[in-house]
């Protein structure tokens, strides 16, 4: 068909229609050439048409084949259409069928549910009836557990079911039953409460526990716990009363008399802890987890009441407040009031810390218990509920009267302990004594014993804040007061040297003689006290050093003690940080003592050593080093200076060596060595030398260094490096020989002298010409 339409227009119009040349135009042609041209064009056109026709003819067979195939398909399509219609019919049918079936199932389901509900309700009604009957019988038989179980069943029934049942045909009966049940419930509650109260009055624990277990069945959890707590509180109160009576009757000679109030508190806490321990399982079993808090909260009220009584008695009996007042007045330094003897405070301070330690232990116990119970009870609870519970707990622990009372007692304690420490330290200082042969005096050991004791006592209270406060006070005491004592002793200085002493001794002896002659007696105190003052200065230096070390030891000891306390779970989250900070302040005081030691040593060096050493060194100037062979050998036989110098030094240092600790002595010799080096250099530069004089000096210096090396533990070569180099220069054969040691030839030697100094030393040799020295290229 497509071929037909395509060829249509061409067939209609014929060759002339499509030809570019119309018949009219051909007929109008006259010229031969034009005719020929027209002819050839027509021939071309004919050829094209012929080709097109051929192509169309070729397609004909293909088209025919396709037509045949189409014809064959016709019947098949009809078949398919029939099948499809049939299928649609079947589906519709099945669908209807399914619809039918499922609706029936749904109906069945509904029926079944209703049936169940009906059974449930029937059951409930039966239960109700059963409960009603059961309750009556149980009540008649005084089987309260059974009765409560029935009521519990009734209470757990679906209220709407009961409501529905009442609207039913048998509503009347059910109504009546319900009324009876409610009456029974009411009666049972009354009976249980009544019986519980009676049992409580009689102190009949088995019956108390029996009825305690019934409360939760009646939905009376809170009431049950509060009633039970009431019973427990009464027991606590009775026991506490008894204990307090015992306290009042305690003989003062009793072994525990000094801590009797702490013991009474301990008994109270132990009693409560035992109660919690014994009754927690019942509460947990019959009331469920998470209820311990309520129980303990009730108990805590009684605990507070009893604590108040004990503490009131304690305050009255031990005169706690008056003693505190007196201490406070003494601290104000209004010296008019009579100072309280610190020793008298000792027992009461120990007792208070013990009381607090017991309280902390108890509070930690109930805290742990409540947390554990909440954890079980709140295992499914939201985060908010958990936080809420944590808040309750914190409030209970922080706001209970027990905590507040103990905080108050500890507040007073700290002030009194501080006073105790300060006064006792003052006493130790006042009674300071020194035994011959000892390096330190008694007060250092005493003071540290006291400080350790006071901090140790604060630590034994188990209160971190109390401990930190006492560490702070100790730091203050050591840093200000005690350090001041030592500082003042050092400020008195080391008395003048023996040489000056001798002079002064003579004049003072003359004076003393004068005065004593007038008074008719002779007093040697002036001379003796100089020795004492010397001793005192050296002992104080030792004291200062030991203090510095003791503080570090104390810090270390406290660190390990504190970590023990913390590992037992005392103190809050910041406890460690607080203690660390307070202890590091204490450690800083150790350095202040070190500074003081340095101060004292340089004082000793400048007042005792320098005034003596300097004249000895100055004697060097009176020994000529501009010498010839004869004098040189004479010097060899009779040493003019250095042997005596060494002897003097040795004599002087024996005193210090005996009186100072090895470490301090070592530092002191170090200072002395530096001093000698500096002073010797000064006199050296004022002297003149011959070749042999240089050699003499070299010998002298070697002897000196050899001696000093034996008395110090550290190397002194460094301190004498400049002097040794000067000796080398003074020993040169000629000026230019220096170049063998200088600059590139210095080898391992590091010159400590500047070129100018080298020239200066060279110039000390009288036999060196100044032009030669000037000409040197250094």
């Amino acid at each position, binding site marked *: 068909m497509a071929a037909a339409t395509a060829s249509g227009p061409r067939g209609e119009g014929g060759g002339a229609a499509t030809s570019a040349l119309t018949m009219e135009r051909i007929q109008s042609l006259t010229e031969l050439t034009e005719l020929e041209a027209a002819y050839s064009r027509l021939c071309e056109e004919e050829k094209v048409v012929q080709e097109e026709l051929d192509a169309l003819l070729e397609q004909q067979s293909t088209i025919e084949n396709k037509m045949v195939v189409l014809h064959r398909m016709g019947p098949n399509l009809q078949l398919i259409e029939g099948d499809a219609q049939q299928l649609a019919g079947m589906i519709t049918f099945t669908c209807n069928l399914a619809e039918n079936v499922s609706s029936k199932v749904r109906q069945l389901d509904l029926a079944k549910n209703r049936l169940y509900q009906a059974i449930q309700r029937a059951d409930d009604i039966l239960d109700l009836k059963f409960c009603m009957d059961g309750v009556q019988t149980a009540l008649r038989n005084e089987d309260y557990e059974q009765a409560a179980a029935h009521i519990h069943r009734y209470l757990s029934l679906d209220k709407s079911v009961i409501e529905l049942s009442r609207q039913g045909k048998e509503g009347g009966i059910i109504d009546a039953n319900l009324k009876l049940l409610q009456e029974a419930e009411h009666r049972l509650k009354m009976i249980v409460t009544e019986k519980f109260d009676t049992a409580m009055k009689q102190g009949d624990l088995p019956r108390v526990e029996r009825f305690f277990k019934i409360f939760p069945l009646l939905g009376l959890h809170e009431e049950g716990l509060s009633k039970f707590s009431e019973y427990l509180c009464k027991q606590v109160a009775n026991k506490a009363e008894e204990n307090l009576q015992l306290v009042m009757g305690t003989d003062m000679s009793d072994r525990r008399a000094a801590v009797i109030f702490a013991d009474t508190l301990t008994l109270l806490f132990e009693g409560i802890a035992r109660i919690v321990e014994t009754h927690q399982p019942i509460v947990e079993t019959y009331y469920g987890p998470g209820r311990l808090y309520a129980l303990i909260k009730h108990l805590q009220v009684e605990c507070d009441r009893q604590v108040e009584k004990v503490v009131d008695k304690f305050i009255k009996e031990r005169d706690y407040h008056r003693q505190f007042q007196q201490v406070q007045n003494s601290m104000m330094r209004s010296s008019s009031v009579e100072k309280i003897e610190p020793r008298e405070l000792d027992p009461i301070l120990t007792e208070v810390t013990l009381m607090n330690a017991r309280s902390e232990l108890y509070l930690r116990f109930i805290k742990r218990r409540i947390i554990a119970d909440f954890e079980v009870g709140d295992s499914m609870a939201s985060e908010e509920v958990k936080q809420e519970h944590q808040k309750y707990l914190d409030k209970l622990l922080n706001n209970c009267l027990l905590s507040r009372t103990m905080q108050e007692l500890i507040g007073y304690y700290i*002030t009194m302990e*501080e006073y105790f420490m300060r006064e006792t330290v003052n006493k130790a200082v006042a009674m300071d004594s020194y035994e011959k042969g000892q390096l330190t005096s008694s007060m250092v050991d005493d003071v540290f014993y006291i400080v350790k004791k006071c901090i140790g006592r604060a630590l034994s209270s188990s209160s971190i804040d109390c401990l930190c406060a006492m560490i702070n006070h100790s730091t203050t005491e050591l840093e200000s007061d005690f350090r001041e004592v030592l500082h003042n002793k050092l400020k008195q200085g080391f008395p003048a040297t023996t040489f000056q002493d001798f002079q002064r001794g003579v004049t003072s002896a003359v004076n003393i003689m004068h005065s004593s002659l007038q008074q008719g007696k002779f007093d040697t105190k002036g001379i003796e006290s100089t020795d004492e003052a010397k001793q005192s200065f050296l002992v104080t230096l030792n004291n200062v050093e030991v203090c510095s070390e003791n503080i570090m030891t104390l810090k270390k000891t406290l660190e390990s003690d504190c970590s023990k306390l913390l590992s037992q779970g005392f103190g809050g989250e910041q406890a460690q940080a607080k203690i660390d*900070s307070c202890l590091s302040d204490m450690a800083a005081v150790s350095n202040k003592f070190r500074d003081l030691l340095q101060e004292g040593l340089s004082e000793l060096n400048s007042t005792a050593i320098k005034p003596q050493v300097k004249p000895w060194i100055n004697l060097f100037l009176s020994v000529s080093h501009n010498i010839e062979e004869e004098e040189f050998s004479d010097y060899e036989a009779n040493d003019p200076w250095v042997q005596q110098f060494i002897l003097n030094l040795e004599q002087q240092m024996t005193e210090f060596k005996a009186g100072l600790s090895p470490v301090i002595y070592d530092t002191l010799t170090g200072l002395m060595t530096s001093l000698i080096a500096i002073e010797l250099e000064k006199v050296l530069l004022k002297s003149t030398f011959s070749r042999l004089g240089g050699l003499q000096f070299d010998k002298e210096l070697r002897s000196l260094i050899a001696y000093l090396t034996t008395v110090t533990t550290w190397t002194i070569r460094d301190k004498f490096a400049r002097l040794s180099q000067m000796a080398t220069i003074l020993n040169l054969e000629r000026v230019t020989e220096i170049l063998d040691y200088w600059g590139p030839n210095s080898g391992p030697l590091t010159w400590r002298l500047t070129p100018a100094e080298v020239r200066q030393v060279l110039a000390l040799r009288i036999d060196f010409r100044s032009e030669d020295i000037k000409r040197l290229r250094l």
Partner: protein
Amino acid sequence: MSMEDYDFLFKIVLIGNAGVGKTCLVRRFTQGLFPPGQGATIGVDFMIKTVEINGEKVKLQIWDTAGQERFRSITQSYYRSANALILTYDITCEESFRCLPEWLREIEQYASNKVITVLVGNKIDLADKREVSQQRAAEFSEAQDMYYLETSAKESDNVEKLFLDLACRLISEARQNTLENNVSSPLPGEGKSISYLTCCNFN
């Protein structure tokens, strides 16, 4: 203890009557929190915050003390080692202001004489309940030679400024003591904490 993690360490102790907001000031500064319904502090609390001032790390050790009377002997023991004291009162509570002389006596008795004291009137967010006028407090602080600042821990007003300016002052003080006058001391207001930039000057 290594000295590498800071250039300066200062101890700051907050004191003042119970309930004036000491803990809230510290919490606001150290944690950026304002916890409502804060319970009374027991004994002392301890917080650390490191701030940067002119490129120098300054570690502030802040001791938050309980205001209640029964903790007084504990808190007093911290005065002596304190570099600075923040004496706090509540601008809506006349009583807390009237107690200031008593606090000053305590400072006189226990603190080192080199301590810097700042007077802080807290709770300015409760302006309509104000009982202590700014002028009165300013006069008082001037007479006592103290720095003075009003804050709100709740609205975070002046809290950063309080601590950072104090740190600046402590640094210059420390420099003067070590005679390092050649190093220029930071001026107050140059302190920067991680999240805030303060610009302020002292009255």
